């Protein structure tokens, strides 16, 4: 219980920090708006040619608003921070603190992520309403379930990025892996719903963690069904567990090789 309270305090402080430095989001707001505007134009041009994989244009634009929202919500720079702390050696100052390094980093970033989710959520709703109007058949009662899925998506993304960042314990250069991971998340669910992929690729994609970061929660928002919720939630839990364990494992493996010298 005391441990939980400790991390609760870290979360509260990081949330307070996010509110204090709220002017930082102005740039993010502009970039988010540009992304949505460009993709709205692109998909409008695509839909001029016909229907796509069972999604209407309205659903598609809302889908993009939601996937971008989750990605902006996930924004935590954890990959860059891990690289920096490991390479500069400043991680050594945190090893003797009364908390678990990996858990601390999560709660320290969670405040900012929650803040992002709230404010970009407001922007996403405004942009979606202006561009295509309300989501057809949307029910507010289903929103909490979609939010659970979104939070799990953020957890999966955070811990996989942390794992990649922590590889700098053993690798001199890991930027290429970061780019590949990022693009897999973009292409397998964020820019294109999994239903758009060719049949053979859909099967493979559903076995990978990438679509469960944005595709699953975004689809629950634009086209909620209990059947889909029951299908994706256990898989999301499983990938969340795998991502947490991989971050913990990489941390343990990396810390075992640290040599600290006084001075």
């Amino acid at each position, binding site marked *: 219980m005391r441990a939980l309270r400790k991390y609760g305090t870290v979360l509260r402080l990081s949330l307070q920090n996010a509110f204090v430095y709220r002017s930082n989001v102005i*740039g993010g707001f*502009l970039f988010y708006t540009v992304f949505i505007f460009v993709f709205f*134009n692109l998909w409008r041009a695509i839909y001029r040619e016909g229907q796509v*994989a069972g999604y209407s244009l309205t659903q598609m634009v809302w889908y993009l608003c939601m996937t971008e929202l989750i990605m902006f919500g996930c924004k935590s720079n954890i990959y860059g921070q891990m690289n920096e702390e490991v390479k500069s050696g400043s991680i050594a100052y945190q090893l003797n603190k009364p908390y678990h390094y990996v858990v601390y980093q999560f709660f320290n970033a969670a405040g900012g992520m929650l803040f992002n989710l709230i404010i970009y959520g407001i922007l996403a709703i405004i942009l979606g309403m202006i561009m295509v109007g309300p989501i057809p058949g949307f029910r507010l009662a289903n929103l909490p379930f979609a939010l659970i899925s979104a939070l799990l998506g953020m957890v999966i993304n955070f811990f996989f990025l942390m794992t990649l960042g922590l590889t700098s314990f053993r690798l001199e250069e890991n930027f290429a892996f*970061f780019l590949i991971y990022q693009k897999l998340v973009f*292409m397998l669910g964020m820019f294109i719903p999994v239903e758009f992929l060719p049949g053979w690729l859909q099967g493979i994609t559903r076995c990978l963690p990438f679509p469960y970061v944005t595709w699953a929660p975004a689809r629950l928002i634009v086209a909620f069904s209990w059947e889909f919720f029951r299908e994706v939630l256990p898989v999301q839990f499983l990938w969340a567990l795998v991502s947490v364990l991989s971050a913990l494992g990489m941390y343990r493996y990396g810390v075992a090789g640290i040599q600290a010298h006084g001075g």
Partner: protein
Amino acid sequence: MKRIGSILKLIALYFKVNLSSAMEYRGSFLLQAFGMALSNGSFVFFWWIAFQQIGGRIGGYDFKDVMFIWAVASSAFGASNILFANMNNITRLIISGELDTFLLQPKDVLINLLCAKTTLSAWGDLAYGFILMALTQGSADGSAWAMFLVGMVIGGLLMTAVSVMAHTFTFYFGDASLIGGMALELTINFCIYPEGIYRGFVRLLMVTLIPATFIVHVPLRLARTFHPLLLAILLGVSLLYCCLAYWFFYRGLKKYESGNLIITRM
């Protein structure tokens, strides 16, 4: 003429020094370039899926056209970030007072400042354009290759000019890093999607403040149907835009106040 020769010599010297410094960390250099090329490659997948779903044209472009604009945009971005990577740091250099160092040197301040840094991963962007051209346009299409090279050079200069112009606002209004970042982001976004998806005001923006039309869309038109007048317009507008950015920077520089910061460039 002598002045242009001196500028080109300076660019070539910086390129040589930056490249040999990158080669000191060969592994890191190759990994970053490879990662960037691979990362860009994922967008081919996106377009392949989109065209497969539609089976026709998007915004007036077919798959081959989209790959052409992607190739030009990627190589132009790569070239500008290899030669003039400091274009992204102009605001920081002005605010921190690091600009003083460049003012004291007997070389053109803007060119000296722009060339002083390179981005390793930009080699991946540059190479990606060539690979994409070879894979999607074929080696026999001479006009496509010629326009790709023209687009790459003009595009690289225009992207740099856009960035210089946007960051120069720092001299007038203080920190313009957001404007600088946004201007380049918009330029890239307007370059990598078919022109026909945009309408009205955005189309106007694309031929004026954010000259994306001249970076990729006009070279594409020239590659498909060559017209000497259109080429002359492309060259004229690009030259005018670059001169305007150059003039705007020097006009802003007159407002610069030194912070008397002492730094060492090694």
